[in-house]
């Protein structure tokens, strides 16, 4: 662990990724202490200061009802990260289990499970999410549900492919010949060998999930006001470009930094695990 950290820190790009994500995490966790106007995350109105360009004490300016944009970006990070963690917290176990079972059992089980996975994969993610959101109410919970529904198949496919390869390894045969249960072979023998790829993908995905969630709320299908959300901020601000540029630019940059940061770390992890083998 310490060695991995040392390797990550020695590469300037992954170091940058670590710093960016570190800042975002600290902001999200300690938002109450860092945000200069924590109460602005809700439905606050301060018409005296509305639509102001960046200037102390409003580092990123204020929005159309006078709320501090910097505070709202910080709280939006918190929501985005919670969304990402919840989505992956459901999608990864589901996808991994489906992939392991399909890859290890083979035959009809494989056929059935992978066809279902393929169907999900063949629908463009945004379309799937939008249709789910169209049927359900556009709340945060449903947003998470929609993103989860389109995310698990990627893990199913990844783990399925890896399991098919690992199944041919001698250690799987050895465990089977000892008389170990299928559950043991799948989760204790095969799964640990898939771990590096899963963790790498999760890191990369955190960025993408933030992006997708933002796209959904940009379309008015995600987090609902007054809860701060990067996607809705960009959408609302875009109407006032280029005069009130800060309304769009800062939330967009916030999305960019998150996606970029998680990608840098994901790439670094991929290299790190690749070099291990």
């Amino acid at each position: 662990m310490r060695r991995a950290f040392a390797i990550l820190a020695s590469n300037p790009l992954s170091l940058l990724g670590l710093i960016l994500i570190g800042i975002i995490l600290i902001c999200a966790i300690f938002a109450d202490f860092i945000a200069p106007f924590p109460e602005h995350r809700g439905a606050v109105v301060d018409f005296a200061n509305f639509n102001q360009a960046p200037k102390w004490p409003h580092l990123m300016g204020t929005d159309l009802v006078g709320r501090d944009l910097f505070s709202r970006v910080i709280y939006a990070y918190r929501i985005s990260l919670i969304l990402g963690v919840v989505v992956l917290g459901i999608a990864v176990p589901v996808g991994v289990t489906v992939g392991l079972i399909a890859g290890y059992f083979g035959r009809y089980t494989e056929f059935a499970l992978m066809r279902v996975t393929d169907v999900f994969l063949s629908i463009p993610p945004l379309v799937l999410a939008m249709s789910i959101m169209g049927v359900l109410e556009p709340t945060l919970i449903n947003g998470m549900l929609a993103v989860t529904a389109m995310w698990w198949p990627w893990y199913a496919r990844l783990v399925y492919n890896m399991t098919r390869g690992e199944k041919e390894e001698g250690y799987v045969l050895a465990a089977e010949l000892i008389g170990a249960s299928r559950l043991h072979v799948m989760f204790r023998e095969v799964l640990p060998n898939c771990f590096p790829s899963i963790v790498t993908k999760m890191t990369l995905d955190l960025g993408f999930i933030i992006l997708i969630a933002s796209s959904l709320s940009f379309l008015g299908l995600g987090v609902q006001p007054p809860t701060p959300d990067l996607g809705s901020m960009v959408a609302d601000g875009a109407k006032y470009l280029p005069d009130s540029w800060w309304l769009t630019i800062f939330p967009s940059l916030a999305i960019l930094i998150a996606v970029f940061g998680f990608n840098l770390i994901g790439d670094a992890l991929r290299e790190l695990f690749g070099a291990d083998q």
Partner: protein
Amino acid sequence: MSPPLLEVHGASKVFRLEDREVPALLDVSFDVREGECLAIVGESGAGKTTVANLILGVYPPTDGTILMHGEPLPARRRREHRRAIQLVQQNPLSTLNPKRTVGASLRLALDVHRIGERRERPEIVATLLEEVGLPGDFARRYPAALSGGQRQRVAVARALACRSELVVLDEPTSSLDVLVQARVLRLLEELKPRRGLTYLFITHDLSVVRNFADRVAVFEKGRLLEIGVTEALFAEPEHPYTRRLISAVPVVSREEELVRDRLAEGGLNA
């Protein structure tokens, strides 16, 4: 002569692929007697691994039956059958899970077959490692930190952990270098009487056969050509194919083997 531990009666195996059928084994019958080492020799593709897999229950025979202690072995092996027949594989690189410690791999056998009390098991693992000539604290190591010879020793320990009766050795030393080979072979030789084991030893190395096996079975293209006591078969091979097989390879005698061993003593730990 000791009674048969395992009997193979008219075993055939046909692999059905999408476009064709591969007859890998054709009506093979032989037995393995308690406490002996039966060598199986034959060219690549002769069906040696196939016969081993039938015995291990990796897949069922297309035809024929396999008996152990006179009882037919079912296609779906019960835990007790798994325990009794173990395998040492050819490739030391893949035989151990790279993500699990050596101790965890051995512990699995003890857990599945409920050998020893739960809290005694770490102790049993250490004893097993020492029995195959490795330090007990290797239990904490990952396979990447072991040499090929050491990994094969762990694989042998895994078979011992199950308290198996029949150990199928599928070219266990063929990917090791000569000096390490000799040491692993000597370990196997020592363990056999001490643990009351029976070996089914698949190999290409006729020197190993000569010095190690009680009997030899010669396979060619899925058929069992001949089977007999090692000295007799080497002295008077019945089949032209066997004759060619024997004359094609220089066979190292026990005396030469000793010289090799003495060289190995000076070498690194196998």
